[in-house]
């Protein structure tokens, strides 16, 4: 039974959890990358081949967004923990800020990444 009117802050609370779970699973990529770097050129080339592929790029792009969104959404929670931002317009603004800020930071990071040669 759905008794609540669906609000932006409720939806973004779920997104915070979903991005958290995605980041959790995605640490496998971080482990693979670090272990490969410690293993040698062949293993490292495999990681680079994967992260350079279309699928790999999509996953890392999604991971970048999940990370940026989760971070900004988390900062929003810190503001609430400190006792600020509970008025209706304030909590909406914080939530929109995390949503838009996450997308902007992700695009910005990828522009910088391509500019310094990650595009190859």
């Amino acid at each position: 039974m759905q008794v609540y009117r669906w609000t932006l802050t409720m939806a973004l609370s779920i997104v915070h959890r979903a991005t958290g779970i995605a980041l959790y699973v995605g640490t496998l990529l971080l482990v693979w990358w670090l272990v490969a770097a410690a293993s040698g050129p062949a293993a490292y080339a495999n990681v680079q081949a994967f992260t350079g592929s279309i699928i790999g790029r999509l996953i890392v792009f999604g991971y970048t967004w999940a990370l940026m969104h989760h971070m900004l959404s988390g900062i929003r929670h810190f503001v609430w923990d400190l006792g600020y931002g509970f008025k209706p317009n304030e909590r909406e603004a914080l939530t929109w800020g995390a949503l838009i800020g996450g997308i902007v930071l992700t695009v910005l990071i990828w522009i910088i990444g391509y500019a310094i040669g990650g595009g190859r």
Partner: protein
Amino acid sequence: MSFDESHGAPKGSSMRTPLGRVRNLGAAHSGTSDFWRQRLTGVALTLLMIPALVIIMMLLGPNQVRAAQILSSLPVAVILLLFIFACTWHMKIGMQVVIEDYVHNEKLKLVSVMLNNFFTIAVALASTYAILKLSSGV
């Protein structure tokens, strides 16, 4: 003696302080420590985000030989170790909260919490080992 209503409990019912009342509470009998550590590691990760992103940017182009060189430098290794420590601790607590919220079967919950511990510790140790191996140049 003045009556202090702000401390919750009815007058005369208890001599325990507010802190004493919440200590050791909760499913894990560790009170609010996970709540605090979730925020501690969250702040740490926010602060570490820019240096971590810079390191990842530095590693976008180079081959393994150059990447190993970068990863074995002291500041890079320390920043990554701090990041991995905070990250794995943060995600262990976060996943446990999710499990406790959605898994209601007691046995399944126990197994899930256990697997969560195994996974996060494995991620933490494998990454740490890799960085230490690169730093020691073996």
